[in-house]
């Protein structure tokens, strides 16, 4: 066991304070909007805190550190592309301004207003499926972090996963978005502080010059140049560039933009909080690179194994558990729990709201606010149980970040691309949207389920590589949208939103 009493005291104090907030805010939930969107009362700084805390999850720390371990400094290109994306969205208001002006609760609701209910339900199902699969790895990665940081035996993993799930379900079900926002603020403070401190400890322990030498020795020039990296390469960078216009629009982050007081605040939110997204990627990647340096050294403990192979995802927590001083280690675990809870609660609430608002409500439009809140709470629990099972059973291909990227593409290339078309292209119609949604919503499944199986002959396996499928998904989605819409203008004339409702006229 790596923990001593001061570490335990830090972690337990944090947990008691955080869950207390959920109970204290329960009486403020008077209707569905206050449960789901905190009554649309988020001002800029609080929206930044909640978005920053939500998007910097424990899973983020884990998959970025693993990517740093596997790709070296070349992985930093991912953070730079994310920063460019946030600056673009913040400056132009691309998609977020249009949706906020329409006052929709979820992105699929836009499909109902711009197209029809069937399109809304299909968009919601794709969003829900991509989101749940993406979230499926949260618990297992969070539990692995705790396992190696605290020093629990490996067979404790499923129990840790179940314990973490119960903790998050507890206060999400009780408090809704108000408790999520308040705890996000506290979590933002502890999380951001710990990330900076940990970066300092991680680098100074091994020494920056040693880190550079190790990456050069292990990966050669590809450890620095993303275009010649064995792990990344040209195709990977092009794939990420395709996603730039849709940066930060994963539904839980988008729900922050929709919860702000107006669309200008949404744009400022993306511009300001986007500045932290470079550090959100680069600092945990640096932990992974430092872990690579540490485990390549002669004095290191052995790298943890999983299923008979080196567990690169466990390298970072195993490294930090060895180098952080007592007390700081407890603070880091409290911060990691904060990171996990702030992300997981928001994601659970988000997917559940999509299920209720965009799949159930179109079929049962006369539900009362009370019924919607109850159903959303039940959906939160059901989603949590799914995530527990998926995380335990599914073995993701290559790195965890690559899995996140392909599930992200499943959503961006289908739902976001067609949303952009619906907002900015007058000729976008139901047929084009449905075709694009179905094609882009299903293509990534080939990578997710066939990427590392032996079903395909060897010579065809390049076709299901994530980089190839990612690029193909964006291109085919756009082509389907344009061609199908233009071919069916007469049979399915585009629906025009009234000027007061949206940006198309």
């Amino acid at each position, binding site marked *: 066991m790596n923990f001593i009493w001061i570490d335990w005291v830090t972690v337990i104090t944090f947990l008691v304070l955080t869950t207390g907030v959920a109970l204290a805010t329960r009486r403020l939930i008077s209707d569905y909007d*206050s449960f789901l969107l905190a*009554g649309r009362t*988020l001002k800029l700084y609080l929206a930044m805190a909640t978005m920053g805390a939500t998007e910097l999850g424990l899973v983020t720390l884990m998959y970025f550190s693993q990517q740093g371990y596997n790709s070296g400094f070349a992985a930093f290109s991912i953070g730079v592309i994310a920063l460019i994306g946030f600056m673009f969205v913040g400056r132009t208001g691309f998609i977020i301004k249009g949706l906020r002006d329409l006052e929709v609760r979820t992105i699929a609701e836009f499909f109902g207003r711009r197209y029809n209910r069937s399109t809304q339900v299909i968009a919601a199902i794709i969003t829900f499926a991509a989101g749940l699969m993406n979230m499926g790895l949260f618990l297992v990665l969070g539990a692995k972090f705790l396992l190696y940081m605290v020093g629990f035996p490996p067979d404790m993993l499923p129990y840790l996963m179940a314990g973490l799930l119960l903790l998050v379900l507890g206060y999400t079900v009780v408090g809704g978005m108000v408790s999520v926002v308040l705890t996000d603020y506290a979590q933002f403070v502890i999380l951001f502080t710990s*990330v900076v401190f940990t970066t300092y400890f991680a680098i100074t322990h091994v020494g920056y010059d040693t880190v550079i030498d190790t990456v050069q020795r292990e990966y050669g020039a590809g450890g620095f140049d993303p275009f010649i990296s064995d792990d990344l390469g040209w195709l990977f960078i092009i794939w990420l560039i395709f996603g730039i216009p849709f940066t930060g629009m994963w539904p839980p982050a988008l729900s922050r933009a929709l919860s702000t007081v107006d669309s200008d605040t949404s744009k400022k939110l993306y511009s300001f909080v986007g*500045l*932290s997204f470079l550090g959100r990627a680069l*600092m945990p990647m640096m932990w992974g690179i430092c872990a690579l340096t540490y485990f390549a050294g002669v004095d290191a403990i052995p790298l943890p194994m999983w299923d008979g192979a080196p567990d690169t995802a466990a390298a970072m927590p195993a490294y930090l558990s060895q180098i952080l001083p007592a007390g700081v280690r407890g603070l880091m675990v409290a911060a990691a729990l904060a990171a996990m809870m702030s992300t997981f609660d928001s994601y659970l609430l988000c997917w559940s709201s999509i299920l209720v608002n965009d799949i159930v409500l179109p079929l049962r439009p006369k539900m009362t606010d009370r019924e919607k809140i109850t159903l959303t709470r039940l959906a939160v629990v059901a989603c949590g149980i799914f995530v527990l099972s998926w995380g335990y059973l599914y073995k993701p291909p290559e790195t965890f970040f690559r899995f996140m990227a392909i599930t992200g593409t499943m959503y961006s290339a289908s739902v976001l691309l067609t949303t952009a078309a619906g907002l900015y292209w007058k000729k976008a119609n139901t047929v084009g949207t449905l075709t694009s949604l179905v094609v882009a919503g299903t293509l990534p499944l080939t990578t997710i389920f066939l990427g590392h199986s032996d079903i395909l002959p060897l010579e065809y396996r390049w076709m299901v590589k994530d980089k190839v499928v990612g690029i193909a998904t964006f291109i085919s989605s756009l082509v389907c949208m344009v061609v199908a819409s233009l071919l069916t203008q007469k049979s399915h004339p585009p629906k025009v939103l009234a000027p007061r409702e949206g940006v198309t006229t």
Partner: protein
Amino acid sequence: MSGWQILWTGALGVSVILFFVVEVVVVVGGASDIKDMLASLREHASEDAKKPS
């Protein structure tokens, strides 16, 4: 150091500074936003309580 090494070292330094600046700005500004949000939700809840069911 090669060009890429200098670039990534600089990027890491900039990322730490930006991260810290965002944290300070949000912590200070967020405190007053919380007060406003709670006041608004309390008002909304009391209005709802007065409405006939």
